[in-house]
């Protein structure tokens, strides 16, 4: 079908293609369209040369521009690290108290420490650091091992009763179930509860005080104010790690729970531990 055929109605040549008497007009495409089309082809070819594109046996062509999305991520991460470098360097060179006293550094450390807290600490201490039974509330002003920024840093670094760390904070309350008679346990529990609130049976308090002096004062102190060197809690305040009230106290006297916190220095490194210490210290209870 090579002969030129002109459509009678429109006066346009046909392509010579015919289906059931329907012929295709050979209207040329607009020039701008054709040019754009060729440009896109040229663009596509150039693109496959410039960027990774053609699949080969084991990988793909790398492209002459050397683009790689992994490198992009790497560069972005490096840029983020570089942007933080000034603060990180300052945090590394200063003590946590100094960091907490510096407005800019504290703001940075609280943000960074808050992020690290949400990943590593919330599992036990809760998302608001409010703790729960057996896991201390970090917002309040009662500290088993000390609430100064350095002391918090020490606790996070080496953990509590964490066997794998030789420098861990170590202490253990013995079980008194076999040492004391049940009535003595009831007496001492009533005495301890009476230090911070009313108790039902006032008659238990006096004998309880004697049991306390004989058995408990060594660690918790004669006035039951606790001893931070041993992590022995203050029994006169309103804060109870393992629950308040005579029953909870009695249970803790019979068979004490001794909580464990891992040492974080190996996993998080010193900078993050410092940031965490500043963050915890900023929650409102820091000393």
């Amino acid at each position, binding site marked *: 079908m090579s002969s030129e055929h002109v459509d009678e109605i429109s006066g346009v040549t046909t392509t010579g293609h015919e289906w059931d008497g329907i012929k295709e007009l050979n209207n040329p495409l607009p020039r701008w369209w054709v040019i754009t089309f060729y440009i896109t082809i040229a663009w596509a070819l150039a693109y496959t040369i410039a960027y990774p594109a053609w699949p080969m046996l084991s990988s793909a062509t790398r492209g002459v521009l050397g683009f790689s999305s992994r490198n992009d991520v790497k560069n972005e991460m490096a840029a983020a690290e570089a942007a933080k470098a000034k603060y990180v360097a300052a945090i590394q060179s200063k003590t946590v108290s100094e960091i907490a*006293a510096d*407005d800019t550094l*504290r703001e940075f450390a609280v943000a960074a420490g808050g992020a690290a807290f949400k990943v590593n600490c919330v599992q036990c201490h*809760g*998302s*608001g*650091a*409010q703790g729960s039974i057996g896991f201390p*509330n970090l*917002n*309040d*002003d*009662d500290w088993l091992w000390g609430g100064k920024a350095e002391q918090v840093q020490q606790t996070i670094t080496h953990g509590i009763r964490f066997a794998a760390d030789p420098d861990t904070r170590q202490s253990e309350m013995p079980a008194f179930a076999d040492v004391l008679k049940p009535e003595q346990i009831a007496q001492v529990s009533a005495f301890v509860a009476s230090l*911070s609130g009313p108790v039902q049976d006032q008659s238990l308090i006096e004998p309880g005080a004697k049991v306390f002096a004989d058995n408990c004062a060594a660690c918790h102190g004669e006035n039951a104010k606790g001893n931070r060197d041993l992590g022995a809690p*203050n029994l006169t*305040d*309103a*804060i109870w790690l393992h629950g308040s009230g005579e029953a909870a106290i009695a249970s803790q006297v019979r068979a004490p729970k001794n909580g464990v916190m891992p040492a974080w220095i190996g996993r998080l490194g010193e900078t993050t531990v410092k940031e965490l210490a500043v963050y915890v210290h*900023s929650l*409102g*209870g820091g000393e």
Partner: protein
Amino acid sequence: MLDQSQVERLEAEAVNSAKTRQPLYAARKKVFPKRASGRFRQFKWLVMAITLGIYYLTPWLRWDRGSFAPDQAVLIDLANRRFYFFFIEIWPQEFYYVAGLLMMAGVGLFLITSTVGRAWCGYTCPQTVWVDLFLVVERAIEGDRNARMKLDAAPWSARKLFLRVSKHAIWLIIAMATGGAWIFYFADAPKLLGQVVTGTAAPIAYLTIAVLTGTTYVFGGLMREQVCTYMCPWPRIQAAMLDENSLTVTYNDWRGEPRSRHAKKASAAGQSVGDCVDCNACVAVCPMGIDIRDGQQLECITCALCIDACDSVMDKLGRERGLISYATLADYNANMAMATAGGTGPINPALVRTQSGSFVDGLAHFHLGKIFRLRTYIYLGVWSAIGLVLVYSLLTRERLELNVLHDRNPQFVTLSDGSIRNGYTVKLLNMIPEPRTIEVTLQGLDGGEMSVVGLDQPASRSFSIPVEPDRLKMLKIFVRQPADQIKEPVQSFEFRIVDKASSESAEYTASFNAPEKER
């Protein structure tokens, strides 16, 4: 069974039947507007000078705001989220002032359109102004209408190439200056100019210049009247805005028709002859390339250059000006009725003239009173009301603000002495470019005391906090209340801030949470 001739034939035709089908695409017919001169042309030069002057010069105006704020009179500081307009500084949350101005601009456009028609299109629209500017360049290089048409039709030669290259080069320079002026609204103009010239400005600055250079060149130089005809919505909206008392550029065919090139011959032959001599001067000067004698049409931007062209012809012929004039539809219709004897016959110009040739007394003429009608009063009222509300709100707005966010996790903390502590994030907004010392005080909440994180001071009911100029100061405040003072699980109290120097103040009612009592 019916015979086929008995089947009724319906009178129907496809809307796009082959006989009457029109292509949807219309190739552009080139427009070569002739230079006009006259009152409206002069007014347009004046408007052009003012609008271009405002656009190019505004960023270079200075305004002293002290040492804590930029000294550029008009500045949109996106990086710091501030908008400066002479003595006004706007924070992002005060953007409603801009919204109010946009509403005023909208209603103002309605007001203008309902009175003097599409004056915006004809005189002040950037498209009109820049096309006018580009035409000045075109005329200076290629000559007026006839020379340009000749050049366009001529084959390519060294001269044509030179003229075309020079024209487009100057257009591009103007376009670049237009795009370049835009960016100075967003940063300190003198500093940014230095950066742009030395190549150290931000990439977005160059991108903005490039995009606006492109749009100015394409819209103002290449597309011109097509932007108004095809792209702009306003020609469509105007139909709803105009009424029979709005001024529009009108061809007064009640005195112009029947038009004739050979008036003397025709009138000698006893035919009635109008004032229009069919010289086409009105068509030649039209930047939209239309014929106003076809009546109102959406392509007409009412630039009034045809009035100038026609008036100068009428002057030469010794006839009254105003064959083409600003007239309202109501006046036009009244005069038209007079010229056609109430619509009973063809236009007869003799009906609107006395024996001596002057116009009869009963002709309708525009007078200023027609601007004041209910519709324009309403527009004016709405426009002024929005303006007054904005001004009032601007004069009475707070420049010291307080925002408080109550900690929700944990809602409260029990301290070792049994007292309860709540945490708050408190934001102090110092919205003036001066440093201030703000006193934060606790009101209510018996026995309550607060402490500020990072502030090495004992707990108290009041603190003095220095706040940087034009900045927000965020404080973490802990409020604590002794156990025996707590009355309810949720108590209300106020944070109050005062600037002692200016005695400006703000209050925020916050709540204090405590555990539900078990008993």
